């Protein structure tokens, strides 16, 4: 496009849409795909820990959990049970040991205040939810999250605070595991100190150390080194088994030992922080890409003049026209999703992209802001002291049933028992999900007397202000935390459509310039670059993700730093795919890569059955929907990829005699002319650039 001549508004917007979409489109595709998968990250983590697949629920898990806790931690001050549910087949048990008398005050309600780690610093509203989801993601993440969450508040000072985890260096994204390890190794004392605002000085230096490391560590530092440092910093926690956290099969009471895995959390973290760089840098890059996405969406709506008339229109088999139709359909059909997910994504990164508000109003103290946003001042209220009298704990099952009656839609997520075995025991039951989007983080609770089983209180849910309601609404939508299984699948479906939209847009950039290449008689270097990047970013990423799951099963289960190896598999395969895209011709590269991705993905259920997991026939029959859902999805998506590969391979472009170009996918000449001005107008921009 030339800027020295007046253009029509639509033409300018068309130019903007093309280039805003292209420049970071490859990154956006990766963000969309991994983000879409992240809606199911707990399920993915479960799949990646086949040791958990055979866990069942027979309705008597609570009694077994209490028995296990009574055996393992008879003197604990507080027991926590995260129930199995639609997103996790196992129960997670954890406890905190009774502290020395003078330290008692700080224990607080962990479930409520912890666990912000998975939403990062930008989502201070999400404590309760975060903690709960984290805990339900069995493995070791839950604990780590809570831990990190507390630390957030403790040392979360301005932007640097975001690096607090010392995860800025190479090995950061597999973090969950490492956080987990650290927590395991860490004496509880420190945990409490970390969580107590009044004891800032007593806070272990590790926090500070972690931050320094994040700033100072060279980016090239090998992840293992980082891990070692972390381990050392973490109080020598290393690879020890958790001392205060267990994963239990509800039907047998057996303590399970899941393998180490980067799990769904790697994909989740990658979608907003990338990998292998400082997490701040990663967020900046993704933030900028998100802004481009927003620009592309708005300009796309403007350019697309017949939104209603062409709403259902898809004309297959017509080359460029079909691609444009597909791009429009995937964009328009889930337009509400695209707008919300992009805008809320910007909001989530907002404290980093636009820190002015925090800097002025709170003097850069993000912790203060987070506390005010939460609107809960008493999160660190002291636990009630035990009376010293022994008394038997009331059975939990009737209490849970009562809570279920009270919240039929939300269900019960977690149970916290304070002073178990004491006459003053209390039992707190929390909702699995909140009732609305604006009240995120404010799950309802029921507090029972631990001996008589009477309801002691129904703590009111804190009213949130209009501003924080709006914030909660958007962020909850983005993260799908509210979602029971149907909304979660709907979000996933929209995410898939969004990924298709980005991919078709990228492909169209190449297609729209087919005529140029024919006229020119060769493929300009810029075109070739886009071709290669398209293949590497789209099919290459899909191969890499499939390989990541293969790696999860093929690497030895007891391999040290297993989670890092999984990530290495992911990136090595991605790099190989990119090399392949460079050496192969464009069409061949697409066909081969799509086929490979399809085959790898479709065989995942077979791999699952063959490598210790529960195979599809069994998991469906036994109602293990987390595992069955993953396998079924892999089958369908793999089949679609193979179908796409076949389509591309069958396509015979009509190349004008004498043209030396290798068109990716070309349309018949007469259709090319009939294509509307959007596509036809695009090459103008390019010609100007080439000139």
């Amino acid at each position, binding site marked *: 496009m030339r800027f020295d001549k007046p253009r029509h508004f639509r033409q300018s917007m068309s130019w903007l849409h093309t280039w805003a979409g292209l420049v970071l489109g490859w990154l956006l595709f990766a963000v969309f795909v991994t983000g879409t998968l992240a809606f199911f990250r707990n399920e993915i983590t479960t799949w990646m820990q086949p040791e958990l697949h055979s866990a069942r629920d027979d309705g008597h898990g609570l009694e077994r959990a209490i028995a296990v806790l009574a055996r393992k931690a008879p003197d604990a001050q507080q027991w926590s049970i995260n129930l199995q549910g639609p997103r996790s087949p196992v129960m997670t048990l954890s406890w905190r040991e009774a502290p020395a008398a003078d330290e008692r005050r700080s224990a607080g309600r962990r479930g409520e205040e912890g666990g912000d780690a998975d939403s990062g610093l930008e989502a201070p509203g999400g404590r309760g939810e975060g903690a709960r989801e984290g805990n339900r993601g069995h493995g070791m993440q839950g604990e780590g999250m809570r831990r990190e969450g507390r630390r957030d508040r403790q040392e979360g000072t301005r932007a640097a605070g975001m690096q607090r985890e010392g995860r800025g260096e190479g090995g950061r994204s597999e973090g969950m595991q490492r956080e987990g390890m650290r927590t395991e190794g860490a004496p509880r004392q420190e945990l409490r100190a970390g969580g107590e605002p009044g004891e800032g000085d007593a806070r272990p230096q590790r926090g500070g150390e972690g931050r320094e490391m994040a700033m100072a560590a060279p980016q090239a530092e090998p992840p293992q080194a980082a891990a070692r440092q972390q381990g050392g910093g973490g109080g020598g926690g290393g690879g020890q088994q958790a001392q205060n956290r267990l994963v239990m099969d509800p039907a047998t009471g057996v303590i399970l030992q899941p393998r180490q895995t980067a799990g769904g959390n790697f994909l989740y973290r990658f979608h907003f922080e990338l990998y292998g760089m400082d997490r701040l840098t990663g967020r900046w890059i993704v933030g900028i890409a998100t802004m481009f996405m927003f620009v592309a969406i708005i300009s796309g709506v403007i350019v697309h003049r017949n939104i209603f008339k062409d709403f259902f229109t*898809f004309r297959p088999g017509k080359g460029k026209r079909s691609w444009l139709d597909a791009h429009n359909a995937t964009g328009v059909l889930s337009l509400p999703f695209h707008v919300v997910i992009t805008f809320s994504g910007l909001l989530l990164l907002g404290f980093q992209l636009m820190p002015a508000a925090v800097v002025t109003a709170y003097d850069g103290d993000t912790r203060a802001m987070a506390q005010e946003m939460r609107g809960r001042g008493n999160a660190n209220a002291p636990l009630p002291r035990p009376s010293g009298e022994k008394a038997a704990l009331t059975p939990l099952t009737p209490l849970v049933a009562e809570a279920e009656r009270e919240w039929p839609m939300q269900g019960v997520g977690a149970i916290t028992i304070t002073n178990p075995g004491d006459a003053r025991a209390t039992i707190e039951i929390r909702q699995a999900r909140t009732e609305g989007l604006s009240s995120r983080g404010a799950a309802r609770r029921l507090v029972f007397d631990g001996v008589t089983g009477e309801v002691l209180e129904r703590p009111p849910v804190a009213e949130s202000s209009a501003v924080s309601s709006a914030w909660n*609404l958007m962020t909850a939508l983005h993260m799908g935390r509210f979602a029971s299984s149907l*909304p979660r699948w*709907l*979000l996933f*479906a929209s995410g898939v459509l969004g990924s298709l939209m980005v991919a078709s847009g990228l492909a169209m950039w190449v297609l729209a310039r087919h005529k140029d290449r024919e006229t020119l008689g060769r493929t300009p270097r810029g075109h070739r670059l886009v071709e290669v990047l398209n293949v590497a970013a789209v099919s290459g990423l899909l191969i890499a993700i499939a390989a990541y799951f293969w790696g999860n099963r093929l690497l030895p289960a007891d391999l040290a730093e297993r989670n890092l190896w999984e990530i290495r598999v992911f990136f090595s395969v991605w790099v190989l795919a990119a090399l392949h895209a460079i050496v192969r011709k464009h069409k061949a590269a697409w066909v081969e890569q799509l086929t490979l991705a399809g085959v790898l993905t479709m065989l995942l259920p077979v791999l699952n059955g063959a490598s210790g997991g529960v195979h599809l026939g069994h998991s469906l029959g036994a109602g293990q929907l987390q595992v069955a859902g993953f396998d079924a999805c892999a089958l369908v998506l793999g089949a679609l990829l193979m179908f796409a590969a076949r389509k591309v391979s069958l396509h015979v472009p009509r190349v004008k005699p004498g043209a030396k170009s290798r068109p990716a996918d070309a349309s018949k000449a007469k259709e090319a002319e009939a294509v509307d001005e959007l596509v036809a107008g695009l090459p103008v921009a390019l010609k100007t650039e080439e000139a």
Partner: protein
Amino acid sequence: MMDFLVFAMALAGFNALCVSMERHAKQVVGHAPAEGRRRGFSALGWGLLALSLGPAVHYHGASIGTAVWFGLMTVAAFIVGLLLSYRPRPLLGLGGAALVLAVALLLVV
């Protein structure tokens, strides 16, 4: 079940909307219906879409209900669009059938 009702209403709504459009009506029925009938279909379609918000909000609450509503509409519209491209004929009665099924299920269960 309530979710299926919302989905059926959205499906029927989009179905009616696409029949109300000249080009698509030709694909489904074979010829373009009269102007008046197309208007009727259009009103029916928009009406059903708007009404389907009702059960969604009733069942899930205002905020989550709206999100679910948008999500189900996306899926419904996607299905209608796919059928229209590859197998337009079933669209003659699909929406109605889904609606009847949804109401029947709601009454029976």
